[in-house]
C-alpha cells in the first residue's frame, strides 16, 4: 500500500496555498511582496513539485520563515538565494542557474530555432529559379483567380 501512503502524503500538502497565512506575514507590505516573489522561486524540498509559496508542509513553513527574516533584515534576493543554495544545494531553486552544467537546458530551445532557420534558408536558397510572369500574363491570372473565387 505504498501508493496509498504516497497519495495521502501528496494530498496532505496539497490542500491549500499557505504563504498568505496572516499568522506568518511581515508587517511591511513591500517587504512581504518581495518575500512572496522569492517564495515562488524556491522549491519545497520535501514536496512533490511545489514552491514554498504554495506548500503547507512543515519544511516550507520553516523556509518561509527564514526568507522572511532575511528580507526583514534587509538582505538582497541574491544573498538570500545564495544562503539557501549553500544549505540545500541547487535543488532548492525553481529557476535553474545560468551555469555550464545547465547550458543545454537554457540554450536547447533557441538552438532548435537556429537549426530550423538554417534549414529553411538552405531550402529557400536551393530553389530553382521560377519563370516570371509578364504583365499581361499577370493580368490574365488575376482575372482567372477572380472568376474562380
Amino acid at each position, binding site marked *: 500500500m505504498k501508493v496509498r501512503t504516497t497519495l495521502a502524503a501528496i494530498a*496532505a500538502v496539497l490542500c*491549500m496555498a499557505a504563504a498568505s497565512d496572516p499568522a506568518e506575514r511581515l508587517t511591511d507590505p513591500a517587504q512581504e511582496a518581495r518575500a512572496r516573489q522569492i517564495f515562488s522561486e524556491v522549491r519545497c524540498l520535501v514536496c512533490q513539485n511545489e514552491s514554498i509559496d504554495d506548500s503547507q508542509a512543515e519544511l516550507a513553513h520553516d523556509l518561509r520563515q527564514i526568507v522572511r527574516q532575511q528580507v526583514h533584515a534587509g538582505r538582497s534576493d541574491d544573498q538570500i538565494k545564495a544562503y539557501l543554495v549553500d544549505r540545500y544545494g541547487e535543488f532548492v531553486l525553481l529557476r*535553474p542557474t545560468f551555469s555550464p552544467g545547465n547550458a543545454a537546458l537554457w540554450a536547447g530551445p533557441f538552438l532548435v530555432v537556429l537549426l530550423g532557420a538554417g534549414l529553411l534558408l538552405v531550402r529557400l536558397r536551393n530553389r530553382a529559379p521560377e519563370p516570371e510572369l509578364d504583365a499581361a500574363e499577370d493580368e490574365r491570372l488575376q482575372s482567372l483567380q477572380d472568376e474562380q473565387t
Partner: protein
Amino acid sequence: MLVEFGAFALALALAFSVLQAGLSAAARVRRSTTLAAAGEGAAVAAFLGVAVAFAVLVHAFVVSDFSVANVAANSHTEKPMLYKVAGAWGSHEGSILLWCLMLTGYGAAAAVLGRGLPRGLRASMVAVQGALGVVFLAYTVFASNPLARLARAPVEGQSLNPLLQDPALAVHPPFLYAGYVGMSVAFSLALAALIEGRVDAAWARWVRPWALAAWSLLTVGITLGSFWAYYELGWGGWWFWDPVENASFMPWLVAAALLHSAVVTEKRGALAGWTVFLAIAAFSFSMLGAFLVRSGVLTSVHAFALDPERGVLLLAILGVTAGAGFSLFAWRAPALSPGGVFAPVSRESALVLNNILLAAATAAVLLGTLYPLIREAVTGEAISVGPPYFNLTFTPLMALLLLILPAGPLLAWKRGDAAGVAQRLWACALLALAVGLAGYALVNPRQALASAGVGLGVWLIAGAAAEILERTRAFRGPAAESWRRLAKLPRGAWGMTLAHLGLGVFVLAAFVETGWRQERAETLPVGGALDLGGYHLVLEGVSAVEGANYDAERGLVRVTRAGQPACIAEPERRAYLADGQTTSEVALCYRGPNHLYVVLGERRGGEAAPVWLVRAYWNPFASLLFLGPAIMALGGLVSLSDRRLRLAAAARRQAEPQPQEQPA
C-alpha cells in the same frame, strides 16, 4: 464468472491483434484483398474484445465487486455512482485498459473508414495499428491485468483518492486518452507511407482528419485537467508547469505543428518528410506523456496511480515503438520527394516558421521536464526546473509565434505579398497597440508585461476577424457579395479562424489573470469580513454538513459590492471518511468573465472563540482561460466536418476500380 469472461475477451483481443498485424502484413506482401479484408475484420474483432473487457470492468465497479483486486483498491460502496464508473479508469490497470480500448477503437475505425485509401497503404496502416495493439494488449494481459481476482474479497474497498472525485476529472482521462491515442492513426499512416515510399497530397489529406480529431480531444482533455487543478487544488492557479501537465502539453504542441505542416504537404506537396516525422513524433510524445505519468519517473504534484516496477516496462515499450518509427523514418525518408518550391515570403514559409517555433517550444517543455532527470543521472547533481524557466524560454518563443500568426493565413501560397499583408493588418496592429497602451496607462496596478500580453491577445483576435473580412472581401465591394462569400466559406476556413480566435482569447485571459490577480487571506470569526478587488466578503456562519462519503464544514460567505449583494459563496472543507483525507471545495462566484474564488481553510482558536482561515482570490478573465481552449477545440471539430475531407475520400472511392482478387 462475468469477470473471467471479460479476462477471456481481453486475451482474445490480444489474439485478434496478432492476427490483424499478421494478416494485414501478409496482405501487403502478397497483394491479396482477401487477406486484407481478414486483417480489417480482425481489427474490428480486437476492438469488440477490448470493449467487452472494459464493459465488464465498469460493471464490476458499478456493483462494487471487491473480489476484483482493482475494484477493491479503488472503489468504495458509498462512493457516488459517477465516481464508481470513473474509478474504472482511475487506476493504473484501468487506465491502460482504457488506452487499449481507444487504440483498438481507432484501429477499427481507421480500417473501416479507410476504404478510400490505396490498398497497399491501407493494409500497411492496419498492420502497424495491429502491431501497436499487440504491444499494449500484451502488456495489459501479462503485466497489468485489470480483472485479476483476489483470493479473499474484502468487505469494503479502499476508495478512490478524494481529490480525483470530481466531475471534470472523471471525464478528463477519456478525453486525454482519446487525444493521445488518436495520434496512433497518424503514426500508423506515417509508417505505412514510409513502407510504401510515397507521401503525397492524398496521404496528407488522410492524416489531417485523424490529427484534427486527436488534437481537438486533447485540447478538451488538457483544459478539463487545468480547470480541475484550478478549483480543486485550491490555490487559484491553473497551470503549474508541472511534469504531468507538461507531459500532456508536449503531444499537443507537436500535433499542432503536424496540423499546420500537413496543410503544406496537402496543398503544395512540400515538407513531406517533416510531416511524416511529426506524425511519428506526435504519437511518441503521447506515449511519453502517458508513461512518464504512469511510471513514477517524475515527481509531480499530481502523479496518481504510479508504479515504478512496471514503469520500466512501459518505458521499454515506448523505446521500442518510437525507436522503430524513427528508425524507419531515418531509413526511408531521404527517398521522399522534396515537393514544390516557395519564396521567402509565402504561406509555406510562414507555416515553416510556425513549425520551427512550435518545435522549439516543445524542446523547451521537454528539456524543462527531463533535464533534471538527465543531469542527475549524468553528474549526480539534483536541480529543479520550475515555472521561472518556462517563463524565460517557452513564453518568448510562443510570443514570437503569436506575433507572426495573423500574417500567415493572409499570405498567398508559393509567393506572398508582404506589403499587401501589411496593408490588411495595420488596423489590427493599431488596435492591439492602443488596447495594450490603454491597459498600461489605465489599469491599476500598472503592469507592463501583462499589458503587452493584452495587446498580443487583441492582435490575435483582430487578426482572426481580419482574415474573415479578407476572405469575404468585406467593405471592398457590394455587401450582398460579401454575404454570399461568407455563406460559402468552407468549414475548414471557419475552423482555422475559430482556433486562432480561441488562442487569442486564451492569451488575453492568461496575461490579464496572471498580471492582475489579487489575493487576500485572513483568519475570520463568524461575522468577520475581508475586502478584495472592490468586494466585501462577510463570513456569516460555518455549519457542519454530512456528504455521501465525507463530513464537511461549510462556510457561508456573503459577498457585496458597494453595498449591493453580489453573491453567496459556500466553500467547504471536507474530511473523507474512507481514508481521513481533507480537501477544500472552492466556491466560485462568477462575475461576468471574472471569478471571485473563495476557500475555507482550517479552524483555529479555541472552542470558545473559533476563527477560520478564509482565503479569497480575485481572478479577472478567468472564465476566458477555459473558454479560449474550448473555442480552439470547437474550431478543430468544425474543420473536421469540412465537406472537402469527406468528398475527397468519396471521390477517390469512385475513381478507383472495383477491387479484384489478384493471384498470389
